């Protein structure tokens, strides 16, 4: 039980680290494009760009996954996955939903 838990924590840590490093690389390459791909705000993008490796390692070593599902509604998810759609169309559908999704999140957070 404990061994299995340790294993899971390590795997989560690995995913977190890979995710954070990739995210930072994207932001450093092209800030706006990275915001688009990752679905993050400009503040978060700037913060990511400025993080040191030590900070990233510390944040990554967690029991919680840092990245989350972005198709976070059942309706959208099943629309994309459903009915044996071919890969190209599925990707296209995803691209359309994703770009609007980040915008919707921005819209919700901006006036607050």
């Amino acid at each position, binding site marked *: 039980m404990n061994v299995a838990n340790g294993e899971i924590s390590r795997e989560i840590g690995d995913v977190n680290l890979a995710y954070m490093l990739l995210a930072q690389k994207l932001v450093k390459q092209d800030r706006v494009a990275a915001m*688009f791909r990752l679905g993050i705000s400009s503040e978060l993008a700037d913060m990511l760009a400025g993080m040191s490796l030590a900070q990233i390692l510390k944040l990554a070593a967690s029991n919680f996954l840092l990245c989350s599902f972005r198709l976070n509604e059942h309706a*959208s998810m099943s629309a994309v996955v459903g009915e044996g759609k071919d890969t190209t169309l599925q990707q296209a559908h995803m691209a359309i*939903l994703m770009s609007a999704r980040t915008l919707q999140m921005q819209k919700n957070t901006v006036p607050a």
Partner: protein
Amino acid sequence: MTRKTVLGEVREVQLAIELIGLGARLQFLEAEVGLSRERLIRLYKEIKGVSPPKGLLPFSTDWYMTWLANIHSSMFYNIYQFMKIHSDEEKVWILIKSYKLYLQQIAAQDSEPILDFTRAYTMVRFFDSDMLQLSTCSRCAGQFVAHAHDHKSGYVCVLCRPPSRAGKARGAKRGAVAGIAGDGMVFGVEPALEGGLH
């Protein structure tokens, strides 16, 4: 009126090179780049090896409504809208950047771009002049390119409700696309499309 500086001119040339590389038409270059027509034509010939194509720009919104074109248009416009809100660059660079992201997206999907640069630019203008709008699909909540003033309620997108013949035969579909879009308009565009037609 901006003063002519050497650096300013270099920037204009860079912009022109970028745009020609993406397949921009001469009319668009003349509108967006502060270089003389002669210089633009010369640049175009040097980069492409051929004279710029003649003929009018596409002016029908119907093209964007056909099945595959609508998918690609919606993909591009969603990207463009994101860039417009979050990027502080000039409008023409936002257009370039979004179009490149669209091309990357298509490359990642292993398919061919259906929306050429001229169509993309024309679409942005259609949106600006309130001839097109984004409608939200009632099933997947995605935003899709639609005619302006179409009633929005109960709208279902082309991906959630594909037409019965969609995607069956590429060649046949392209023919159909041209059949609708070519209605009463000059069609001097897209080598890719023309390749599919003849």
